């Protein structure tokens, strides 16, 4: 199909052998001599004032080498709670000891006096006036109040004219919206297009529902861990299990007031990230502080229980959604009001509420989103942050509309999808994306058009869109005298990105993939490279690698020109040799010979440099179809078929791409059917894998992946980020399939057996 020889081919991952032999070094494998074991002292209350923290008994315990509290944090950035505890498990102090059991015992000996406060865990409770306030009276206004308040502010600012009458009228109007005063608001996000009221007025069918999506954990296999070693000169080395070593370096520098050059962050092999492995203060800062104080290396490693109580999972949310369409199937208006459970700090991905727009032409759209404080840990990214939640609501409701107007769900979506050149917000137009191609591909592959369903069986379809990010990156590539190629960069390998980078460089330098090796540096030795999240790595580092290889390619031709005394225009790099295009008989020189020759030239060795920061990304679509069977008596749902297509732009390594499609789809399935962090008065009540269920291979048939390639103009070889899109549609795919099977619309995830039985009973089963 393509003229490429290495990219576009399935090759073994560069890290395959070290992974399967156990040679890969994870964070917990790091054990410098004299290492101490750190333990974080955690709150046993979900909401309380701290009256006192007494570490004196713990300090006396033999083997305890350091105890730290917020007093030890020079920047004052909140690492440990000081006066108020906001969630169960919040860090209060940390201990380093010669043995993990001693550290744990010392942690128990630290006495904390609390004044217990009322707890709020539910976002819809937290916004009420009666709710306890986590951060004082942090009230913000509701959507209508906000518009009025904006007008008041604008009029107040106009000092040249007297608006006092208008202002007092507007102020009186504020009283009309008592239900729109929300409390415990951490952040808000609003956007609109068209005229929402007019839009709904023109609709034949309007559907309104409230969707509730639970907080879920990234459940990476490797818990957070860091090993820190501060030496007598003040130099700090941190072995960190992280997606972004450079972000950890700057985070530590900022929090602890250490110069950047005095910090070296060594990223260890990552046991999964999914967006949850960027946090600085979770383990890295405590480890550094403990090492500075004790003068010895310290490991801080979270248990699985700590991961649940003090990880940074994906936010749950409540989305009130309203959609209207005409009887002939045109979606005219959609309005969302979303409350995201942000936990004790802001940071929930509330901006993703806009994803309810989907990839459809919706002329009238209004979205209001709020982050809400509750007594839970903060949240972080999880694979397409915020998109699965918003798309669950949007795609569930589309099926309800399709049903009411009697239109096939796939046809209804195809009819409303945006096309190249359609206007999109911010004055731009839609680029060429394979929206329809991807949905058609999954429908064809799944057999949608002649689908059959037995009793209690049903089919569901949904699509989800996402656009990869990009970030700054640097890559060096060196060619050695044996013709081998070595790559240096600083981004963590995630989802096989080192493999993709190696393929790109092999392709350009026309060498076998096997002769390319990749060296990921620490922050002391690698050029600045982006964090490995937001599906950026193959896009950013792939582009960077391409630039580096092209730079090396240029140097190779220069060398050959010099060596062969030929004009560069008459030379071509092919199969690891530079050929003289017009030579008869053929004449060529091996890459290794040129590399050897380069060592004695004025220009010097072959080193290519690539540096890249930003280019417009192109959206990607994931489309999925599931066939399920629901047991109406037990409420259990079995997946009979799950097909996932995705517009990946260009699959640099098709097997790795399929792996991402499968993995994302399974995580989406899990969120739909079983995963849920549950909270009681005191905090998380299922902090472990017994009652926080992640699916096993027995729960699903093999996910059938379908790769669609509509190239992205700025992606390397047209590639788009592939990691995040596949999780986005699955929640709705499953809910839509269950609806088709037994006629119940589950709007509150996960679709547990009990909920299904209850819903069927209220339907008269």
């Amino acid at each position, binding site marked *: 199909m393509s003229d490429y020889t290495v990219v576009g081919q399935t090759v073994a991952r560069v890290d395959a052998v070290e992974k399967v032999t156990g040679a890969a070094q994870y964070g917990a494998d790091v054990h410098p001599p004299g290492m101490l074991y750190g333990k974080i002292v955690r709150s046993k209350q979900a909401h309380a004032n701290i009256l006192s923290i007494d570490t004196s008994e713990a300090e006396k315990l033999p083997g305890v080498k350091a105890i730290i509290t917020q007093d030890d944090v020079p920047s004052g950035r909140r690492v440990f709670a000081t006066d108020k505890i906001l969630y169960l498990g919040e860090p209060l102090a940390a201990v380093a000891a010669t043995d993990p059991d001693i550290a744990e015992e010392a942690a128990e000996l630290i006495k904390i006096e609390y004044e217990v406060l009322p707890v709020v865990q539910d976002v819809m409770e937290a916004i009420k006036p009666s709710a306890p306030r986590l951060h004082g009276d942090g009230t913000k206004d509701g959507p209508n109040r906000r518009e009025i308040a904006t007008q008041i502010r604008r009029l107040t600012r106009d000092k040249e004219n007297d608006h006092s009458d208008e202002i007092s009228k507007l102020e009186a109007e504020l009283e009309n919206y008592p239900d729109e005063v929300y409390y415990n608001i951490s952040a808000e996000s609003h956007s609109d297009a068209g005229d929402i009221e007019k839009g709904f007025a023109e609709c034949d069918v309007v559907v309104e529902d409230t969707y509730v999506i639970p907080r879920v954990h990234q459940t990476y296999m490797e818990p957070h861990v860091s090993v820190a070693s501060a030496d007598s000169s003040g130099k700090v080395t941190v072995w960190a299990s992280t997606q972004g070593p450079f972000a950890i370096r700057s985070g530590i520098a900022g929090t602890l007031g250490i110069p950047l050059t005095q910090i070296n962050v060594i990223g260890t092999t990552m046991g999964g990230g999914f967006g949850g492995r960027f946090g600085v203060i979770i383990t890295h800062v405590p480890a550094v502080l403990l090492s500075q104080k004790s003068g010895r290396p310290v490991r801080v490693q979270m248990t699985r229980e700590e991961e649940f109580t003090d990880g940074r999972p994906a936010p749950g949310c409540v989305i009130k959604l309203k959609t209207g369409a005409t009887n002939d199937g045109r979606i005219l208006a959609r309005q969302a009001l979303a409350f995201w459970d942000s936990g004790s700090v802001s940071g929930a991905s509330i901006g993703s509420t806009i994803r309810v727009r989907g990839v459809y032409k919706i002329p009238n759209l209004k979205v209001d989103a709020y982050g809400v404080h509750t007594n839970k840990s903060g949240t972080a990214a999880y694979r397409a942050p915020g998109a699965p939640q918003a798309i669950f609501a949007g795609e569930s409701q589309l099926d309800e509309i399709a049903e009411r107007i009697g239109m096939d769900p796939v046809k209804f979506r195809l009819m409303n999808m945006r096309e190249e050149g359609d206007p999109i917000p911010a004055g731009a137009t839609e680029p060429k994306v394979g929206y329809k191609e991807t949905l058609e591909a999954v429908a064809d592959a799944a057999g949608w058009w002649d689908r059959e369903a037995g009793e209690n069986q049903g089919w569901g379809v949904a699509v989800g869109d996402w656009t990869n990010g990009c970030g700054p990156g640097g890559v060096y590539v060196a060619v050695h005298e044996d013709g081998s190629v070595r790559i240096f960069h600083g981004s963590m390998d995630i989802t096989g990105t080192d493999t993709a980078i190696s393929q790109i460089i092999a392709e350009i330098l026309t060498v076998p993939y096997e002769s390319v090796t990749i060296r990921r540096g620490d922050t002391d030795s690698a050029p600045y490279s982006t964090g490995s999240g937001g599906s950026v790595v193959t896009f950013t580092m792939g582009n960077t690698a391409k630039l580096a290889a092209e730079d090396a390619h240029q140097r190779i031709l220069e060398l050959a020109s010099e060596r062969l005394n030929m004009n560069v225009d008459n030379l071509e790099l092919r199969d690891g040799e530079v050929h003289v295009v017009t030579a008869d008989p053929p004449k060529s020189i091996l890459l290794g010979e040129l590399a050897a020759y380069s060592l004695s030239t004025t220009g010097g060795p072959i080193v290519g440099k690539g540096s890249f920061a930003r280019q417009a990304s192109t959206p990607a679509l994931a489309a999925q179809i599931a066939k399920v069977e629901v047991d109406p008596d037990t409420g*259990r749902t079995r997946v009979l078929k799950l097909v996932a297509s995705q517009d990946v732009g260009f699959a640099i390594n098709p097997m790795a791409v399929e792996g991402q499609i499968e993995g994302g789809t399974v995580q989406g399935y899990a969120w739909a059917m079983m995963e849920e962090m549950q909270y*009681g008065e005191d905090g998380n009540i299922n902090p472990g894998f017994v009652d926080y269920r992640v699916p096993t291979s027995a*729960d699903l048939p093999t996910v059938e992946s379908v790769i669609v390639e509509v190239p992205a103009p700025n992606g390397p070889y047209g590639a788009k980020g592939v990691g995040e899109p596949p999780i986005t549609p699955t929640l709705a795919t499953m809910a839509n399939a269950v609806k088709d099977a037994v006629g119940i619309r589950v709007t509150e995830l996960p679709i547990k*057996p*009990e909920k299904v*039985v209850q819903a069927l009973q209220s339907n008269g089963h």
Partner: protein
Amino acid sequence: MRNFEFFEPTTLAEASRLFAQEHTQLLAGGTDLVIGMKALTEAPQSVISLQKIPGLAGVTTESDNSISVGAMTKVRAVELSADIQQHHTALAEGAAEIGSIQIRNLATIGGNIAHASPAADTVAGLLVADAQVDIASADGERTVSIDELFTGPGQTVLAPGEIITRFRLPSPASGSHYIKHKIREVMDLAFIGVAAAVNLNDGVITDARIGLAAVAPTPIRATEAENLLNGNQLTAELLAQAGEAAAAAASPISDLRCSAEHRSEMVNVLTRRTVQEAVNRA
């Protein structure tokens, strides 16, 4: 994990003498104990391994098809025993529901029972097998019926120093079946578990036994439902009555896994299904 003393006695008498001391725990497969010790929910001063005591593991079948299962028999061996599969299918099916294969290769049936979780997956199968539990101590031996063994969650009639040595399954059932209500296909804990066993005489049910797990503080038999079935041919109506009766026997709790109401409903549904399947197999 706290420090502890580790003993590997080679006789039951010695093990019993050690186990009679306070703050001791027996180690069989370790799949519950070691996790508890790591989480500090268990902090025994002494751990007494049963692994060096001969004769505690294995499945033996007598000429009358009565079966003896040693307490140290691995759950995986119970699951795969052809005799248990044939004569006490519900027990083999229950064993197959525990954890993963790796766990089942370590865990023992004695541990699964002595741990006294109302949700143990082998317990419903043992209940419908009418299992007799042999118990040894330094003072001698005694036998209790499986339905008299448990006194509450984590609690049994075992006195200090008493060790379960074997389960005797006196009479085979020609048909039995176990169903566990769960969310995940494998490696899940029972929301509830139901086992049924029957013999048939000319199409008439005899020896009906129904065992319920995770629906009461201890595993229980649904005797009302059994009485309804015994002496009758199975009809849809009878099945419905048996389901109702079994649900009435349950006194489940609501917890983070599901509500008491859901558990009761599932006792009804799964009793009907297990009884039907047991009769089909008989």
